[in-house]
């Protein structure tokens, strides 16, 4: 490959935000027919590099050469015109438009000078089929889960004849099957000679699909490597700048004492929401981590939302600490010591206009009530404590959260709930977009909480994660709880996957 002319060369890129040097002297070169990974911890500057390339941000210094010619790209529109097609980290689509429109807007199919909706719907279905997704494309995007929205965003980029395809953490909310379908498509595109930039915190995926990788650390360029030639430990240490501790102490299976049955905290009895999740039974005991496994759209999020009162159950009974409860709003649940970290951090998590500190203390403050205001000093103390605990970067509590990198925003969301010290913590894809270092940190935290006699409901698309941490695992399929396993030695990934996919 290297003997070919590179498609894109970025040299000595510098980008500074007020108070933060996001990129200093970063290089990137892309060749046709390669998949190139951008690696780095949260806040390393991966997304910024991408946004600088596609004209979302201006470049302070440095040059970009596209197919041998220097270019100045001033807007995503120009980037697109130059054949650069991008899926940004968060789903950046318009949820008020239909799936079809999201795929085609900006390059609609026209007939007799007007938009040809029928053709576009058909075409959209075909594109999604490539990703093995069958959904009603005329529905609004907002009626689908984040994962599907992510797939739609990917499908959108497949629609253009691009020269460069950029995927910023496309897999963070996808489960294994979807990732496979995506990879199949990527391989196809690679064959067609596209240069592809791929960002992910999953090392397996990096090793599976990429040819070369560029490592960034704190906005600095660390190096460019062939994926085959660098082993995992080395890669990780390049990313974090030191050796990663082993993940041994995460496994909770062995640590949780299963001799005496722990006290029950929450008990759901035939709870359901019509059209969203079929009635299910679930018991959450103190000191226990319960995982929920299921495929995309299997209703995991819905289950969590019902338990938290974000959606109102229209069937069944719920008991907390033996007393019957009826959560009509999240507030009721929070006051009963339940916390819920949503999978959709952009629309249901962060309060963009507020600072990191304010975002963190929001939940605890709402428990205290508005009159009982935490003093600013206390707020800062709490914020700093959790910034340190979760290694949030930049470590400034007064930073606006919207200016944080995606992974760091996620950490702030976690902090918000950890601060409330809930008895039951519901975590919906908490590890989305979080780097490996932080991921282990979060796993450890979960085990520690469970030892503290807290109860955790853990939703994740990564079965290993679930298997590694949970005591019990509920499997959902088609919005129905189909099975509940004790996570003992015999339970394997295959068992779970079989159940998730449809039994037998």
């Amino acid at each position, binding site marked *: 490959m290297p003997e070919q002319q590179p498609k894109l060369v970025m040299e000595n890129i510098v980008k500074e935000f007020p108070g933060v040097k996001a990129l200093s002297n970063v290089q990137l070169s892309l060749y046709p027919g390669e998949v190139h990974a951008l690696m780095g911890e949260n806040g390393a500057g991966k997304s910024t590099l991408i946004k600088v390339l596609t004209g*979302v941000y201006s470049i302070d210094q440095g040059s970009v050469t596209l197919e041998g010619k220097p270019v100045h790209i001033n*807007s*995503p*529109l120009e*980037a*697109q015109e130059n054949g650069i097609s*991008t899926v*940004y980290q968060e789903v*950046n*689509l*318009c*949820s*008020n*438009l239909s799936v079809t*429109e999201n795929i085609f*807007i*900006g390059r*609609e199919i026209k007939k007799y000078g*007007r*938009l040809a909706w029928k053709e576009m719907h058909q075409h959209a279905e075909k594109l999604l089929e490539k990703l093995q997704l069958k959904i*009603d494309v*005329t*529905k*609004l995007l907002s009626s689908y889960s984040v994962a599907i929205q992510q797939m739609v965003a990917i499908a*959108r980029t497949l629609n253009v004849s691009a020269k460069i395809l950029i995927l910023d953490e496309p897999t963070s909310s996808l489960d294994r099957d979807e990732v496979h379908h995506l990879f199949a498509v990527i391989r196809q595109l690679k064959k067609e000679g596209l240069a592809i930039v791929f960002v992910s915190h999953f090392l397996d995926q990096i090793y599976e699909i990429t040819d070369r990788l560029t490592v960034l650390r704190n906005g600095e360029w660390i190096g460019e490597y062939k994926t085959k030639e660098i082993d995992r430990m080395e890669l990780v240490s390049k990313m974090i700048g030191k050796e990663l501790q082993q993940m041994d102490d995460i496994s909770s299976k062995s640590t949780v004492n299963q001799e005496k049955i722990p006290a029950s905290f929450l008990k759901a009895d035939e709870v359901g929401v*019509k*059209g*969203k999740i079929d009635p299910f039974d679930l018991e959450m005991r103190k000191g226990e981590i319960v995982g929920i496994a299921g495929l995309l759209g299997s209703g995991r999020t819905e289950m969590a939302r019902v338990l938290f009162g974000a959606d109102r159950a*229209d069937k069944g009974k719920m008991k907390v600490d033996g007393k019957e409860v009826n959560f009509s709003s999240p507030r009721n649940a929070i006051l009963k010591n339940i916390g819920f970290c949503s999978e959709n951090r952009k629309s249901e998590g962060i309060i963009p206009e507020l600072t990191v500190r304010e975002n963190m203390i929001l939940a605890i403050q709402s428990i205290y009530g508005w009159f009982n205001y935490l003093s600013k000093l206390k707020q800062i103390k709490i914020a700093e404590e959790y910034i340190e605990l979760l290694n949030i970067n930049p470590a400034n509590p007064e930073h606006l959260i919207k200016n944080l990198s995606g992974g760091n925003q996620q950490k702030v969301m976690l902090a918000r709930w950890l601060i409330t010290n809930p008895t039951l913590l519901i975590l919906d894809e908490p590890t989305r977009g979080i780097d490996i270092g932080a991921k282990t940190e979060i796993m450890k935290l979960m085990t520690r909480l469970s030892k503290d006699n807290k109860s955790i409901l853990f939703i994740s698309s990564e079965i290993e994660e679930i298997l590694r941490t949970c005591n019990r695992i509920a499997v959902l399929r088609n919005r129905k709880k189909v099975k509940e396993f004790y996570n003992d030695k015999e339970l394997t990934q295959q068992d779970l996957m079989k159940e998730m996919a449809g039994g037998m």
Partner: protein
Amino acid sequence: MINRLSLDYKQLPLLATISLFVLMFSFGSLRYTGFFSTQVFLNLFIDNAFLIVIAVGMTFVILSGGIDLSVGSLIALTSMVAASLTMEAQLSPWIVVPISLLVGTVFGVVQGALIHLYNLQPFIVTLAGMFLARGLSYVISVETIAIDHPFFSYMASIQIPLPGDNFISISVVIALIVVVIAIFIGHFTNFGRTVYAIGGSEQSAMLMGLPVGRTKILIYTLSGFCASLAGLIFTFYMLSGYGLHANGMELDTIAAVVIGGTLLTGGAGYVAGSVVGVLILGIIQTIIVFEGTLSSWWTKIAIGVLLFLFIILHRVIVLRSEKKQASN
């Protein structure tokens, strides 16, 4: 089947608005003699043609998440320009009409450019535009200028007969053409879809590589143009130019658009909805005129109450059917 349901779901508020309109019309017909006639219905269009036209322009603005407060004043300014050019400068309508249409268009371009280039809040820019346009019409003349020109008189008086002794005015025809074009633009052009996208999320639209800036400027231009066209229609209707014309009409327009189901936060709504919104406001007024016994203040209270009833019923219908939809 799925297809149909989802359509219904999206258009539910619109359907609710239409049924409430029918309900109000039936109420009027039962209560007042002479209410139930095609002409009363057609009068809603005749008397509100200009409102329909500005509401169309405003719909695009609101769909994009913006607002345009200058439209009412632009009507006054357009009428003033048209009147003074016709009566004082003695120009022919062939020149007057295009110039008048240009007035609002230019206003729109400038407002749009300010909003986009300097990242100003639409509310303020168009509020300044509102002051400016009305101020300029006073500068032209504080007095009303009556228009006495065959072309304008012709446009004012021409009645297009419809079967059954009914008629509509030329303004209605213009307004309906504008509506049809706008519906086409909204749903069958990429400009229209970009407007919706910007309303959904301007940032996403930008990242998706849509021409956000250009579209925004165009939106305000369109609204300005519609205001001017409405101004001309208004001038036909009034046969005069006057600085106080259409005072406060921007609020009526916004109300009509919002009543018609468009979300003020942008991204959802229909041009057709705004037309029904205008008709709703019109019928509220017609009912009050037919009632004919309300004192000035009771008139206002009655408008408020009718508006309230409408909104409540609308919310109830929409909420209930949403629930039904969800459980299906």
